[in-house]
């Protein structure tokens, strides 16, 4: 089974907690047959996006076929955020965008003009935008779906497919909003069956959050898919096909 992990983090630490290195991450990917991982900052969500984007791409340059960097920007910076995003996405190495309204401290609706501009930049570059979701008050699954409705040409991904309490909502929303996808990263096997049955196997991608925790998390999240009870064809789409399709829009995976 081919696997692309659409949700991982690569940073030196998360506040006081050391995080796995790029070497450790690739070693774990080898162990579990993960071909490539989309990697996001952690500390860059707390500030200094530019330097964290630079640091991320420096690390991923060491494993260009395995680690795919996603840029982040701070929408609170207004037009400067759009400029930063334009610059990053003009660099072919950045293949997508990660936003985390909870950690970045903004409600998308309070920055609608900026957010709309950012998503249009991403859409122009064929870059998917993945949001943390499932956590009030800035990251409910409904809030992220609303953002997707603002810019239909953008590809928006629920980073946790509803996480704990929003899974049913996520299933309905990816069914109803054409440009909205769900990254299965956190919910469990019984939830995955519902996401696929309701939203469609073509709207759900695998993600682990590996990097924010140790290698065991990658194994656990793979188990979540393997043990869910999907058909082989559905599992292939979730583990690989859908991520490959979204990433290929910007030039191969």
């Amino acid at each position: 089974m081919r696997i692309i992990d659409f949700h991982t983090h690569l940073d030196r630490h998360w506040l006081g907690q050391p995080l796995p290195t790029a070497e450790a991450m690739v070693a774990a990917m080898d162990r579990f047959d993960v071909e490539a991982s989309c990697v996001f900052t952690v500390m860059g969500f707390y500030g200094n996006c530019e330097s964290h984007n630079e640091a991320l791409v420096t690390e991923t340059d060491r494993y260009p076929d395995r680690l795919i960097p996603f840029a982040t920007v701070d929408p609170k910076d207004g037009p400067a955020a759009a400029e930063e995003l334009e610059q990053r996405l003009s660099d072919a190495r950045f293949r997508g965008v990660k936003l985390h309204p909870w950690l970045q401290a903004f409600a998308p609706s309070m920055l609608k003009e900026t957010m709309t501009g950012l998503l249009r930049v991403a859409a122009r570059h064929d870059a998917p935008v993945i949001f943390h979701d499932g956590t009030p008050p800035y990251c409910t699954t409904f809030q992220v779906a609303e953002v997707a409705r603002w810019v239909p040409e953008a590809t928006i991904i629920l980073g946790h497919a509803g996480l704990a309490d929003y899974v049913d909502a996520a299933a309905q929303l990816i069914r109803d909003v054409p440009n909205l996808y769900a990254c299965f990263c956190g919910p469990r096997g019984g939830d995955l069956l519902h996401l696929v049955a309701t939203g469609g196997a073509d709207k759900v991608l695998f993600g682990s959050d590996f990097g924010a925790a140790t290698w065991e998390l990658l194994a656990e999240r793979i188990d979540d898919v393997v043990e869910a009870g999907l058909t082989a064809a559905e599992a292939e789409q979730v583990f690989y096909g859908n991520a490959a399709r979204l990433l290929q829009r910007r030039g191969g995976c």
Partner: protein
Amino acid sequence: MLNTLPVIDAHAMLGEEAHLHLDAETLLRRMDAAEVTMAIARPMGAGLVVDHAAGNALVLKAGPRIRGLVTANPWWGGKALDAVARGRDDGAVGLFLDPTRQGFMPTESIAMPLFERAAEYGWPVLVRTGTYVCADLLAVAEVARRLPATPFIAGFGGFADMWFDLPGTFAAIPNLYVDTSMMIGDGIRALVTAHGPSRIVFGSAEPRNRYAVCLRTLERLGLAEDARRAILHDNAKRLFGL
């Protein structure tokens, strides 16, 4: 085969709720496949929120290998206490409450009589914890402080976003337990390392989670045999008086 020890699942769910559904027969099949000896089940869906008679009957009449936690919505007042008393007569081994689904804050006065009744019966109380507001882990901790002789189990271990509040709360409240059903391995390891295994019980969250996933998560931690036995069996046996 993953298990060389008898396994007690301390948190399974019977009934129908949103996209989840599980009956006793199916749970038993899954237990057999995973070599789980016994499950502690609680109602979900309508049986949890409004129809306690049906929900409690579902878990209390599921057979000798499935023992039940009864529930009652605190808003029923005296009727809720009557439902709990009937549950005790029918062999319940504890109380389950889901503040989010049942619509109350754990510290609200409306809920206190139920907690006190569980304490009177010598029962453990399993409370679903998770997304903030009513399922706030710290709200459950406040109630646990008020009833220090009663074991409170943080159901789902604060899944998803209260994982960072769990270690400190666990350290501060000696009568607070967790079930592992929705916890990631790192979170379980952190608690075992800091506090030992004595307040951690294995759970599956079936039908939301899968036995195979939950058991492998524990196996990967490479815990000492006594810690594995405590989490998979001994703690639940002691806690639920099995």
